[in-house]
């Protein structure tokens, strides 16, 4: 039988299906951060259970960590306790933790690939929905709840129902300055935030093969915004080249064995998917969200829709509510929207490539009056590399703040946040009400679009720069 990549990974990780229960899948790698793990450790302790395979786990601290004055104690006592609890739990269970002071620290989904902790063909989980990121390597990577975190620690398995498969094929080449982020947003705009529910998406086509590993990570990262459990890209030479030599990647004889296995992973020619969507890369403009859901998105040259433009009653109401929350009028041109704050960072767009392209656009410009612009590298490694390339100077000379790594304004748990009514151009992944601070208004964009908005003070079509 012809199999998709998802089916191959499923089959090779199937443990058992007990009568009346869901199939059990084996979990190879388990990622952790401070927010969704403490209650799982507590559960283990209460039930007197142990972590089955401590070396399958890699943990960071990212959500609550400050992005400036790292040498000072964390001001928020509850956040401080969460950070300390994480350190204690990892120590008690002998887990590999890159804490705040560790040179490998950063946002979990940025750090993990830097060390090659997730090889192709494996099952990877984390108490975090953006675990989907690691699908870029052809690994089945998905987010789980805290009870499941506990389940995986205790058993190294998860009861799972088989997902449906969706192929999203992007034909042809992207236009200049259109990026993986724009593909991700355009897909969410097209299929909606529930479009991928119950599915694992496989991304394929010329535009996807041409993406860098960083781009593929950005794309898979946002599979969850389209409602999918996971996103996958078939491993290829780019994947192997990226992995080779990294800390957790095999070498010598084991490299050859691993490589031979990885090459069997891509979906068989003619394998069947439950749903197939084909898009033309050339049609994907730089995207800007205008509402409070990632599906409320359009091309930079368009206008904001009006509630009457939607036939569906609920969508129409959602448009009305969103415009109200966002303080925007229907039919305003996207390029007429003025912004107050620019954020480049997060597990979606906090990688070196993101800062390179943003710096390229920032070079020789100045942040517009009344605009604050902050660049938050996804990890210390990204930070260092950017500094080695002199990118930090480009940003600071243009009036940007250059920060320490962390999730920062992606979800504003660490004190970096919008005030009510402030409007951001943000390279993160969610524009939900209050996500970046109560009353804050978020527009999701690519790093290039964010950088261009910083100097202009409003959105601009970067293709005209």
């Amino acid at each position, binding site marked *: 039988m012809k199999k998709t990549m998802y089916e191959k990974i499923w089959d090779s990780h199937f443990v058992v299906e007990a009568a009346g229960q869901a199939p059990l899948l084996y979990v190879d790698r388990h990622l952790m951060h401070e927010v969704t793990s403490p209650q799982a450790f*507590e559960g283990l302790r209460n039930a007197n259970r142990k972590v089955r395979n401590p070396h399958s786990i890699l943990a960071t601290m990212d959500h609550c960590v400050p992005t400036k004055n790292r040498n000072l104690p964390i001001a928020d006592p509850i956040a401080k306790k969460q950070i300390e609890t994480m350190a204690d739990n990892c120590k008690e269970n002998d887990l590999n933790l890159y804490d705040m002071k560790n040179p490998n620290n950063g946002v979990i989904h940025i750090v993990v690939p830097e060390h090659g902790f997730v090889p192709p063909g494996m099952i990877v989980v984390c*108490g975090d929905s953006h675990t989907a990121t690691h699908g870029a390597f052809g690994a089945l990577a998905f987010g789980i709840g805290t009870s499941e975190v506990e389940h995986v620690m205790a*058993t190294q398995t998860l009861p799972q129902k088989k997902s449906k498969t969706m192929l999203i094929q992007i034909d042809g080449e992207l236009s200049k300055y259109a990026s993986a982020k724009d593909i991700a947003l355009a897909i969410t705009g097209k299929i909606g935030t529930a479009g991928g529910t119950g599915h694992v998406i496989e991304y394929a086509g010329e535009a996807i093969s041409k993406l860098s590993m960083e781009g593929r990570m950005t794309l898979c990262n946002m599979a969850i915004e389209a409602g999918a459990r996971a996103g996958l890209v078939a491993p290829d030479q780019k994947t192997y080249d990226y992995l080779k030599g990294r800390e957790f990647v095999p070498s010598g004889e084991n490299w050859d064995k691993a490589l031979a296995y990885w090459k069997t992973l891509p979906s068989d020619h003619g394998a069947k998917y439950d749903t197939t969507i084909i898009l033309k890369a050339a049609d994907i403009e730089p995207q800007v969200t205008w509402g409070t859901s990632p599906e409320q998105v359009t091309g930079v040259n368009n206008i904001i829709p009006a509630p009457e433009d939607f036939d569906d009653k609920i969508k129409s109401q959602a448009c009305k509510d969103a415009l109200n929350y966002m303080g925007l009028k229907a039919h305003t041109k996207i390029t007429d929207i003025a912004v107050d704050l620019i954020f480049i960072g997060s597990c979606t767009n906090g990688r070196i490539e993101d800062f390179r392209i943003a710096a390229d656009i920032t070079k020789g410009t100045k942040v517009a009056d009344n605009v604050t612009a902050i660049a938050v590298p996804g990890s210390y490694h990204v930070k260092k590399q950017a500094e080695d390339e002199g990118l930090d100077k480009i940003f600071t000379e243009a009036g940007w703040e250059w920060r320490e790594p962390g999730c920062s304004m992606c979800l504003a748990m660490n004190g970096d946040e919008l005030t009510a009514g402030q409007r951001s151009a943000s390279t993160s992944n969610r524009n939900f009400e209050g996500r970046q601070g109560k009353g804050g208004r978020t527009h999701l964009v690519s790093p290039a679009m964010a950088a261009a908005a910083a100097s202009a003070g409003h959105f601009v079509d970067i293709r005209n720069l």
Partner: protein
Amino acid sequence: MQAYTKHQSIAALMRRSNVDTDQIIPKQFLKKVERSGFGQHLFHDWRFNEDGSDNKDFELNKAAFKGAKILVVGDNFGCGSSREHAPWAIEDYGFNTIISTSYADIFYNNCFKNSILPIVATKDQLDRLMDEIDANEGVSFTIDLENQQIITPAGNGFKFEVDAFRKDNLSKGLDDIGLTLEQSASIDKYEEKHKQNFPWLWT
């Protein structure tokens, strides 16, 4: 885990779709290291005014919905993050049943780990339940998990689908981890094979 039994309860209505986990439990409450006490923060930013008083315009603050165990809500409920704090808050507030047309996958799974039954209705079925609540705020529905049935006074009830294993575990209040550990021998056996097939993961 608490066993889910047949019950009759007030059904509260929220006519909103794509309600995300950031709304269900805003991130400022995610810093706790305990599992309990999240109900007081459920829908915090919608539920309370700046000064901490109840927002009279928010659906769940209506007197008729006090004590509701059933939440009837629009499409794609629970989208966004994987935070289990969302079902913890819902359960702690007092809900044990949600009725919508669809849920985000992770949220849906999380519900079953917390004695919450997320029922999937068709659009038409949901519309009728919503209209019945609108016409008679404070109305009670009966949820019969065993027979997979909702019963309403105006006759808008219906049969619903739920996976057999999920239904069984929920109605008996079974601990998932305990169930899986019964399969330890199979896990050990698989792991031996895994070490041979993927030796590079074990070095």
